């Protein structure tokens, strides 16, 4: 594009130079010598101003040579002899340089102005894009907030009718109705789903409250097994804690950590075959207090080991009819992470799963207990 334009300038001004020369040669006898340099000076000026420095200098040199050869006596000879010739050449060159410099400066200014204008347009477009995106994020966030609010209030409001149905069903059960027992089971299932939804809305809204405190491993182990006692129908929980060794302590939120362990125990009890045991164990490992829940269930295929921690994940071919939304482990993992802990899964030697929960361990100096 630029090359084309430059070539056009060179051709145009070359033609002008040729035409001027032809004209002046044919008139050279009748023309006064002083018009000649002025005419060429105009050509050099025009060429430099429109075609740039190189064209200007080329025109200056060619003009000088043409004048010297064709238009100056003695004609048809190169004879740079007079001072006035050198002055003409110098004037041509200076004109070419000054004119082209002015041109360059003007071009730079123009280019800068164009770039500036482009920048302004680009910034305006960017700004508009950002505004659009901000609006989109705001709308999404508002949508999420509304969804969470609806989830929370719906699951809260559902509890009252659920309570009434459950109470009525239990009332009927007393008369020996087996259908009433089924109704009660379905109510319990629905209740768990509602609880899961409420948990999910809290998780998404980041509304878990944490109060990490000094807590004992055996305290939370006792609370967890007590809470799961009702579920120990076919499989039972065995706790492994060395109660003759000094007590193990950690800095963690009791309620949220309890939720994690109870969730792991519930899962393990559901997947463990009848008559088998689920083991809950606690030990100290460096800076961590570690709880493990081990089962003899079917275990988890390697490809699915991380995916079980995804919300709404269900292993392929699993029965969808478990009455859970499939978010328990996702919630458990984020509860662990939120208190500087971690929740991981490992295959168990001899079959089954081991879920390992780590929380920060704590050391207790008995002298600080305030017993003097």
């Amino acid at each position, binding site marked *: 594009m630029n090359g084309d334009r430059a070539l056009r300038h060179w051709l145009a001004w070359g033609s002008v130079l040729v035409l001027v020369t032809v004209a002046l040669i044919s008139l050279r006898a009748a023309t006064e010598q002083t018009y000649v340099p002025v005419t060429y000076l105009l050509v050099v000026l025009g060429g430099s101003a429109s075609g740039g420095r190189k064209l200007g200098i080329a025109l200056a040199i060619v003009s000088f040579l043409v004048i010297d050869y064709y238009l100056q006596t003695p004609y048809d000879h190169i004879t740079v002899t007079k001072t006035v010739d050198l002055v003409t050449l110098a004037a041509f060159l200076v004109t070419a340089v000054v004119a082209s410099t002015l041109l360059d400066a003007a071009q730079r200014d123009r280019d800068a102005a164009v770039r500036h204008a482009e920048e302004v347009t680009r910034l305006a477009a960017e700004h508009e894009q950002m505004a659009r995106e901000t609006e989109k994020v705001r709308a999404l966030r508002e949508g999420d907030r509304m969804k969470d609010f609806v989830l929370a209030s719906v699951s*809260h409001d559902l*509890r*009252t009718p*659920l*309570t*009434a*149905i*459950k*109470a*009525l069903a*239990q*009332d009927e059960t*007393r008369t020996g109705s087996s259908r009433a027992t089924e109704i009660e089971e379905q*109510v319990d299932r629905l*209740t768990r789903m509602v*609880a899961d939804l*409420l948990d999910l809305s809290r998780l998404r809204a980041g509304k878990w409250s944490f109060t990490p*405190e*000094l*807590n*004992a*491993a*055996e*305290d939370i*182990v*006792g*609370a967890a*097994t*007590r*809470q799961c006692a009702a579920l120990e129908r076919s499989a039972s929980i065995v*706790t492994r*804690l060395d*109660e003759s060794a000094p*007590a193990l*302590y950690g800095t963690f939120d*009791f*309620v949220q950590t*309890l939720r994690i362990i109870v969730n792991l125990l519930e899962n393990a009890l559901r997947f463990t075959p009848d008559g088998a045991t689920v083991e809950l164990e606690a030990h100290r490992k460096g800076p961590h207090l570690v709880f493990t829940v081990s089962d003899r269930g079917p275990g988890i295929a390697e490809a699915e080991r991380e995916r079980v921690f995804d919300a709404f994940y269900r292993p392929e071919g699993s029965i969808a009819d478990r009455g859970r939304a499939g978010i328990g482990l996702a919630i458990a993992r984020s509860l662990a992470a939120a208190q500087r802990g971690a929740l991981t899964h490992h295959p168990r030697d001899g079959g089954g799963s081991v879920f390992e929960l780590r929380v920060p361990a704590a050391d*207790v100096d008995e002298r*600080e*207990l*305030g*017993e003097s």
Partner: protein
Amino acid sequence: MSAANCILVVDDEFQIRRALKNALREVAERVIEAESGAEGIDLAATQHPDLVVLDLGLPDMAGADVCREIRRFATMPIVVLSARHDEEDKVRLLSLGADDYVTKPFSTVELLARVKAQLRRARTQLSVPPETPIIAGDLSIDIARRVLMRGAQAVRLTPIEWNIVRALVLAAGRTLTHQQLFDAVWGREFGDPQRYLRVHITNLRRKIESSPSAPRFVVTEPGVGYRFELP
């Protein structure tokens, strides 16, 4: 023989009242009903029920206010029905004077167990240190003489452990919130010692429970406090 003479149910849902009434007939000769907070307070004052089952989601006033109002003139146990599951709510209710709570949807079997426990506790109210030792399983606790026996063995407790046992045993069957325990053991003292409540509980359990990680006497109410259970 019924465990109670009269129980008051305060709930605005007719179906829940009817189901509760049927269930509570097992333990009470008479079950009276109120469908609003104002009516509940009225009946609690005029009928002198032995226990109140109070739903928190009432149309006319906040359940917490009903609880506080009843506590102005009566000491009978109040068992609260709550649709909320968070621990702060439970702590708030217990400090307002409720004795126990069940969260919706509850099983009537569970509610009955709680009601029976509260009626038993009310009959054997231990507001002053009793003269005779309290027997709980293999434990014999003599509050007045500060002697705790496990079987034939005397258990050595530290002063703080004693204060914890005393507070818990005097409120046996009722959950004491962490704050109520702090107040009972450390009084107005603030700061570090309270941080160690859980350590003292752990040490205490190791002295009096046969399995500290499956306690029979000192039971944890997660996020709320501790309760002494008389087996």
